[in-house]
């Protein structure tokens, strides 16, 4: 029996008089990859923030396993130009890491040689990888990724997810991610939560993609996404990943 890392029980969250999440029950267990999908404003980020204790429940509870080490990669991190920060210093927050550990972490994240650069001078992709490197330095049992590939191009995103897969393999940590890249994500996850203020449906990627609630939210085009993905799996032709239209054609 795998250990449960986080338990959400009948969780409701309100902000500014608006209900963002309602009656959410979910658990995350050791080593599994859970993906949260849902339309804009469906409470995906809030759910992650509730898991780390940043969003307070109006009702219900969030329970973390004892001494749970969490690595968190936020959706975006706006670094104020007034704050000087080298990559090495950033990796040492809040706990100091040795130069050797920092070099190894950056190597693993695929961005060696950045150690002495200023954070504000990094490109979007480099920044995202440094964030990941920092999260991994905490040796997390649970890695939370909030739209971690935002701002990356398709090859960049694909490389990022490959790296995530490798991380799970190496560290054996559980991963909870929010993503828009439906086809990539669906393929990589053990379990999918489909969210729209509440949990509409959940289960294996295939069963969720077939669920009427999911299709009501994303339309039949996403069924096409699955098909596209499966198609993509055996071939490596060029695809127009961004366009729903071509995905529907592929359906």
């Amino acid at each position: 029996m795998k250990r449960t890392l986080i338990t959400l029980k009948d969780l409701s969250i309100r902000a500014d008089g608006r209900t963002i999440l309602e009656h959410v029950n979910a658990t995350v267990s050791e080593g599994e990859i859970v993906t949260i999908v849902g339309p804009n404003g469906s409470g995906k980020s809030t759910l992650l923030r509730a898991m780390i204790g940043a969003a307070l429940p109006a009702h219900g509870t969030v329970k973390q396993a004892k001494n749970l080490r969490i690595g968190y990669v936020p959706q975006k991190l706006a670094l104020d130009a007034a704050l000087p920060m080298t990559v090495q210093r950033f990796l040492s927050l809040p706990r100091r890491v040795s130069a050797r550990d920092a070099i190894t972490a950056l190597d693993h994240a695929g961005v060696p040689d950045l150690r002495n650069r200023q954070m504000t001078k990094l490109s979007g992709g480099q920044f995202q990888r440094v964030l990941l490197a920092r999260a991994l330095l905490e040796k997390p049992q649970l890695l939370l990724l909030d739209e971690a590939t935002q701002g990356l191009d398709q090859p960049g995103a694909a490389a990022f997810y490959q790296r995530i897969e490798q991380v799970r393999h190496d560290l054996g940590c559980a991963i909870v991610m929010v993503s828009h890249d439906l086809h990539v994500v669906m393929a990589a996850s053990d379990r999918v939560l489909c969210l729209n203020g509440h949990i509409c449906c959940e289960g294996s990627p295939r069963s969720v993609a077939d669920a009427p609630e999911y299709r009501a939210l994303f339309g039949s085009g996403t069924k096409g996404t699955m098909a596209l993905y499966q198609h993509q799996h055996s071939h490596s032709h060029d695809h127009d990943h961004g366009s729903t239209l071509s995905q529907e054609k592929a359906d």
Partner: protein
Amino acid sequence: MLDDFMVRAALAGVGVAIAAAPLGCFVVWRRMAYLGEATAHASVLGIALALAFSLPILPAIIVAALTMGLTVTLLRGKGFAMDTLLGVIAHTALAAGLVSVALLSDVRLDLDAFLFGDILAVAKTDLVTIWVGGALILAVMVQRWSALLVSTLNPDLAYASGIDPKREELWLTLAMALAVAVAIKVVGILLIAALLVIPAAAARSLVRTPEAMAVCAAILGSLAALGGLAGAYMADTPAGPSIVCAAALVFLVTGVSGPYLYRN
């Protein structure tokens, strides 16, 4: 040596500059310049309160500043238009304080000394206040440094690491109230915020890490304090404003030359 008023003034100026440096960095990073202003202005209310009830002035100032800091910190999270609100609160506190002091007209009080500082009249007891208060501020900043940095970068990153950014913010508020009490004698209520912001801003273009910025701000602030004092002595100008002018000059020099000296 401490019998020379210029030596006492120099020690007071340097003490405040060092204590204000790391705090000033956070004021710059977190864009809380106005919070510093509001906290400082609230101390006039503290002075009025002390006069009305014959309380010792220093604790009254700390309490008033702390109350203001906590009020503002609480309001910050509630989605108000903070810029406007702080503008209202800061100046109301100052005006209400000045009116209250005037109403207590039977008391003779040199309000100018509080508003503009009176560094040349720093006594040995004031020096003790400044250096003990300064040491307390530094102790808080050193102790909370990492947690405060993470909270400043991104509150959610802090939560994920088991740090409560709201609690860290309270430490900052406390340090700010202490800084006001410590700095009043040196630059006065009206210019305290300047002493927090300007050395930190001047240090920015010269450094690559947060720690270096704090150290650099302390050095530049001390230089400004000594330079301002020397200038005031020679030109017979008010000492507090002269110190702030010297800091502004340092800011100009590093701001213009910094990007050429160091390419970060």
